């Protein structure tokens, strides 16, 4: 019995890490623009699909994934220059709507260039499962958890220690004040799209060995990432982690103990209950104002 729970916890944390990465990307763009970015999930799919396409081009899968993630990052920044930057009077709603258009274009681009078939590749380690404390765990799940932790640590250092990270935070806190002290606010938006695309593509590249990637999964990833971000507290980076893990655990425990058919419904019902009880999410602050 306890081994079952352990297994569910590990898989929940694995999925939760993916949601945390997506939620982090969502939060970074939300912080810099105030908008919901519906393209976030498409970058996840794009990362996985590009990595699958190049699976045999490089010496190891890990290098392939890195190249794929960097390509998607460039794509994300290019998208910002093409569709967000030209907006004459940007506001949160308009950017949200534009991101829906961007998501549609990205999805069809992936479909037209990379195909409609689900694709995948082997995990980063040679052996697919290992035994740990009496339960078999997929090694890729451990990679997912480890890489997510590493990425979060890097992000933490970036936002706390580097001048660029501080500029990003300053622009998120007050655009005009940041502009006055010489921060190029438009550049911070570009950078936030880069970080969001990187986080999304990383999530896609490391989950694809377990679930395969298909062009039509993007919207689902976006919604899950959005939910995780809301659950943790929109705009909060630690919140993205807490929200992602909570959503991942909810899904894995809910699908086992209640019903796998109703997995998504259970997760969303609990999510709504938590949000109604604690509107700012676990770690959120003043982004949502109580009337």
């Amino acid at each position: 019995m306890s081994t079952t729970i352990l297994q569910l916890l590990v898989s929940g944390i694995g999925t939760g890490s993916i949601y945390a990465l997506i939620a982090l990307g969502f939060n970074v763009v939300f912080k810099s623009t105030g908008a919901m970015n519906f393209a976030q999930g498409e970058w996840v799919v794009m990362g996985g699909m590009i990595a699958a396409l190049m699976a045999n081009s490089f010496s190891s899968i890990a290098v392939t994934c890195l190249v794929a993630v960097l390509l998607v990052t460039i794509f994300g920044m290019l998208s910002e220059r093409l569709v967000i930057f030209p907006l004459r009077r940007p506001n949160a709603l308009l950017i949200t709507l534009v991101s829906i258009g961007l998501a549609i274009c990205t999805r069809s681009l992936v479909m037209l260039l990379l195909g409609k078939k689900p694709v995948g590749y082997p995990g980063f380690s040679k052996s697919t499962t290992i035994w740990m404390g009496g339960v078999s765990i997929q090694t890729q799940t451990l990679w997912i958890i480890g890489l997510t932790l590493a990425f979060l640590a890097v992000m933490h250092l970036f936002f706390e220690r580097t001048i660029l990270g501080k500029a990003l935070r300053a622009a998120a806190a007050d655009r005009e004040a940041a502009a006055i002290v010489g921060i190029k606010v438009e550049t911070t938006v570009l950078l936030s799209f880069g970080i969001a695309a990187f986080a999304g593509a990383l999530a896609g590249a490391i989950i694809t060995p377990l679930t395969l990637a298909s062009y039509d999964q993007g919207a689902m990833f976006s919604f899950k990432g959005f939910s995780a971000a809301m659950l943790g507290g929109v705009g909060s980076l630690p919140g993205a982690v807490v929200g992602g893990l909570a959503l991942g655990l909810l899904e894995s425990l809910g699908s086992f103990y209640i019903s796998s058919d109703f997995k998504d419904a259970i997760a969303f019902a609990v999510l709504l209950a938590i949000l109604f009880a604690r509107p700012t999410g676990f770690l959120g602050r003043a982004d949502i104002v109580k009337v």
Partner: protein
Amino acid sequence: MTASPRTAVPTSHPIPAQPPSPAGPAIEPAGPRKNRVELRFDGHWPLILVWLLLLLIPLVASNNYVVSLANAALINLILIASLNLLMGFGGQISLGHAGFFGLGAYASGILNARWGIDAWVGLPAAVIVASLAALLIGIPALRLRGLYLSMATLGFNSILFVLFNRLVGLTGGPNGLLGVKPFSLFGWPLDNEIRAFPLIWLLSFLVMLSIRHLLQSRTGRALRAVATNEMGADAVGIDSFRTKLLFFVIAAAMAGLAGSLYVHTNQYASPETFDISNSILLVVMVALGGSGTNWGPVAGTLILTIVPQLLLDYEDAELMLFGLGMLIVLIVFPAGLAGLPQALVQRFRSRRP
């Protein structure tokens, strides 16, 4: 979200001294812009005229397919216009409008297909079920601002989608709900496109008319105030929470009505018609048409009806063309297509002062 830059927001219900002529646009009876002819279609006459013209569709249509398109378009118009009421005029973004649509469709359809309850009973039942669901979501969600309603409605729509798919005994699951009977009038079933058209035509007209009346009423003005500045609205004595809740429930009720019309016209419903992507599509159509304008929903409905027909031949590229078109409209005309004539007139005027 700020109010759209309309030139003249009526601060009181303008009562024209004489009925405006049916052909021309309504002209403000008084005010500083008296001598300036504006491109405004704010009176009821243009609406009545357009709906009278719509009556010609079944007569001039070359085949039944055109009439079925018109039926679908009028049902979509109810959805887009009610969402525009909430989003365009009220500033509240619901990502669950297709969910309320589905709730209405399944409520009315299940009552009919499973228990043989007449469509005329199903129609008010659909409206009531959708309204109650909106109360359930709205009471906790609308006390807060920001992305909160969007998240709550998105979650609500996701839950409904799972239920539509998995409660197979009730909904028919992924295969869809079969065996729904059409509306009937004096024992005469409205069982094809042409017979169903008058009912959909009438109800869509009533919805458009009531939206117009609502917006000109005291609560409608309160809604605009809330959308512009919630704290300011509260300060002048408007209960912003109750105003938002009222319009959220009204919009959901209209979506429920559309759902009942949909299910009894098509005599079928399947879950994917009501998923979040369609909720988002409705939001997009409100924006492309012109959020917070009277004729925006009509423009949005025309896009939603015509564009997919035009893109049918392009198969795989369809999605790409749609996305690109959407981006271009949003970047070049962020106010939406309904604002286009006004923008062109203004540009023309500013060139030749």
